[in-house]
């Protein structure tokens, strides 16, 4: 296994001289920790890994709109409603940048969308949990967007240029979202007893799934090693998870809320917080499609797509007619 894990990730298969030159350039760029751009040669595995990762990320943004959109019509103040609408809109925007980044690797958006709709492509399993109360808007912002940022900040340095650059903008907006989420919880935890209870309940439900967003433990994460060799991934799942836990413990204290883990305690020796084992069976079954909202999320996405088919057809037909009319006009002009 280790022998194949060169920066290029290639087996010593027969390469054409062009491929060899491309491979050499690619290996040099990776060794220099510089950036690969869309027109550069890249190993097929690198391309595939990126398309998978970037499109999964895009799909997560799009499916992730749903739990929050669930509260737009019921947001408890007009200001909160405005912030929430803007946030869900940002997520659609993130989806668009990411689909565009994936398209630079040669897979068109409609193909990626089809992979999502058919169930072939995955998205972050956190979005298969329901957003039951208003406090979930806070917990999703603080914990889910917080975990996403911890994952994504290192991706700003990903070796693939368009992905890294998309992540820079996304991270800026995500950190804004995280602060908003924290502020929702702060307001609730300093509000009435019922509001505080609502906040605690939301944190209890989202803590474990948020920690699982970093992926399985390192010894059970088959793709991580290659992604690290390619400078796509910079830190292991467990490293990022630890970093996240260390970050949120003091934040939870500032909120006056507790985290639902009896094993959570400061380890002086390690200089980190220890935390309990996560429920990986739950994680696997949610990924396998058995989470509380997997079916509902896919149903909504498919319905939106199906209900919009006639609109997209009309837009395409209109564009075709306009182009034809323009061509006729141009021809007439030349003829005159």
């Amino acid at each position, binding site marked *: 296994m280790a022998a194949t894990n060169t920066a290029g990730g290639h087996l010593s298969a027969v390469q054409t001289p062009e491929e060899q030159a491309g491979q050499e350039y690619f290996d040099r760029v990776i060794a220099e920790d510089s950036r690969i751009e869309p027109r550069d040669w890249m190993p097929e595995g690198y391309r595939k890994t990126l398309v998978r990762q970037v499109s999964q990320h895009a799909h997560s943004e*799009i499916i992730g*709109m*749903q739990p929050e*959109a669930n509260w*737009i*019509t*019921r*947001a*408890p*103040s*007009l*200001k*909160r*409603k*405005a912030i929430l*609408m*803007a946030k*869900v*809109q940002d997520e*659609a*925007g993130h*989806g*668009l940048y990411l*689909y565009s980044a994936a398209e630079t690797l040669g897979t068109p958006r409609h193909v990626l969308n089809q992979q999502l709709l058919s169930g072939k492509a995955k998205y972050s399993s956190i979005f298969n949990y329901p957003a039951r109360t*208003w406090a979930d808007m806070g917990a999703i912002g603080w914990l889910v967007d917080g975990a996403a940022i911890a994952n994504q900040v290192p991706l700003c340095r990903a070796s693939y240029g368009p992905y890294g650059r998309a992540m820079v903008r996304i991270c800026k907006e995500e950190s804004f979202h995280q602060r908003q989420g924290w502020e*929702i919880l702060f*307001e*609730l935890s300093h*509000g*009435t007893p*019922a*509001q505080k209870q609502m906040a605690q309940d939301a944190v209890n439900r989202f803590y474990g799934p948020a920690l699982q967003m970093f992926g399985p433990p390192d010894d059970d994460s088959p793709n991580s090693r290659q992604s690290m060799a390619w400078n796509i991934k910079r830190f292991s799942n467990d490293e990022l998870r630890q970093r996240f836990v260390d970050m949120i413990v003091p934040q939870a204290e500032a909120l006056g809320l507790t985290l639902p883990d009896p094993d959570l305690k400061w380890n002086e020796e390690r200089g980190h917080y220890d935390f309990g084992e996560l429920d990986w069976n739950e994680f696997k079954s949610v990924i396998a499609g058995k989470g509380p909202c997997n079916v509902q999320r896919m149903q*909504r996405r498919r*319905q*939106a797509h199906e*209900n*919009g*088919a*006639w*609109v*997209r*057809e*009309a*837009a*395409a*037909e*209109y564009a075709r*007619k306009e182009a034809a009319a323009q061509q006729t006009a141009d021809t007439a002009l030349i003829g005159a």
Partner: protein
Amino acid sequence: MSFASHDSATKQSAGIAITAEEIGASGVTASEDVANYALYLGDDALMLAQRLGWWISRAPELEEDIALGNIGLDLLGHARFFLTYAGTAWGKTEDDLAYFRDEHEFRSCRLVEQENGDFAQTIVKQLIFSYYQYELYRRLVESKDETLAAIADKALKEIQYHQDHASQWTLRLGKGTEESHRRMEKALFYMWPYVDELFADDELLTRLAEQGIAVLPSSLREDFDRRIEAILAEAELRVPAVDGAWGGDRSGEFSEHRGHILTEMQVLARQHPGATW
């Protein structure tokens, strides 16, 4: 540097600095009449924003999730300005007015309360309403009430974009496929009965118009008709031959939909009266 150009949807001007918080903190107090007028304008914007918010995550394309969300967000902003200003007359906040008034106390027109329906119905609603609002706000910027004029100035720039969005889709759907054309005809048929109400004058409006504060809705009709007929003709559609629906003149005669909209919008706030969020 000048930002006065009217050819871009993203242009900025001094008016953009206005926020609901600033109106609340400005110390300006609306008279009872002006406050009631602000409710007409604010409630229309609020109901339509509430409807548009539903589309986010359900639109035909991601670009439309963003566009409809953006339009809803603009309208919600306008609603916040108007309700905050109205509230100064009664010592109430925007949220007091949005969340703790009952159905009969709202002053929205019936058009904005109609269901989203299919995408065509939403577009037709947006077309009618943005063309009406454009005529209204381009006059309201001259209002002798400085706060209303400032809000109109900010809103007008956004409404030009809303108008453009609705117009572009009207053309695409009107001239696109047989199905899209048919859906647009149906949508026009179902929404047009609520057009007359937009242009109905009443005692309050007449009184305020005489003082140069409000715009008399009837004065907008001619321009509205001319412009909307033109865009519909370009889209190979026409104004349907249907009568206006009787009733509704902002007097408290409201649509059946209003109660459902408010039930959903107000539920959480009313479960926790007195709470802050």
